[in-house]
């Protein structure tokens, strides 16, 4: 059994992160849950991560807010 840690832990986490950075794509460290980089789109995030020399294996890329805080089908 493999237990995956969710990097986005709650609605409160999403709100906090989006309030600080804005909506968009985030690279979040799998272990610590810290934000490694942010970009309005995936291309901008890519540039940020390469500039910061972030190890891609240690992060998961997520779009926040996840459910975009609206009703979805």
């Amino acid at each position, binding site marked *: *059994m*493999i*237990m*995956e840690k*969710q*990097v*986005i*832990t*709650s*609605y409160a986490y*999403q709100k906090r992160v989006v309030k600080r950075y804005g909506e968009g794509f985030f690279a979040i460290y*799998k272990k610590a849950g810290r934000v490694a980089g942010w970009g309005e*789109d*995936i*291309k901008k995030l*890519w540039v940020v991560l390469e500039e910061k020399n972030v190890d*891609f*294996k240690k*992060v*998961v*890329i*997520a*779009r926040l*807010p*996840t*459910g*975009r*805080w*609206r*009703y*979805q*089908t």
Partner: protein
Amino acid sequence: MILKKWLLPVYRRVVGATKHKYPFVFEELKGLGEVFIPLVNVGLWFESEKEYLDFQFIVDTGATASILPSFIAGQLSFNLKDLPEVEMAGVEGTGIKSWLAKIKMRLDDWEFEAPCFFVDNPNVPFLLGRAGVLDPEFSLLVDSRKKELLLKEN
């Protein structure tokens, strides 16, 4: 390939299939309160990097196949002009231009290929759909008692 076809089922029968557990993540919606989002981490193969990068997907049993925004196609080394163009419809009924491709995915160390739609809408969420993923690769259990999502390798 031989390993996957013959040895793996035998191994599974003896040792048991690998299960991937994901705790529920909740969002708060007006009028509904807290609603869970079925999030899973899926690796996408980046040809340019020669490795899998993990993305957070929403499991969507209503989606025919997995869905990605079209701007990511280039980074996955796909040229949209070379892919078959199809029309995809959501609940609102209006069709949206999309392109069909087969992409390499990974869930932990379990690698597989699945069809995927690149949708011409930058705001589309990353969705993990049915074709090639929920059938035949994984079985899905939404365990609302334990508040977790369970994906079991078939």
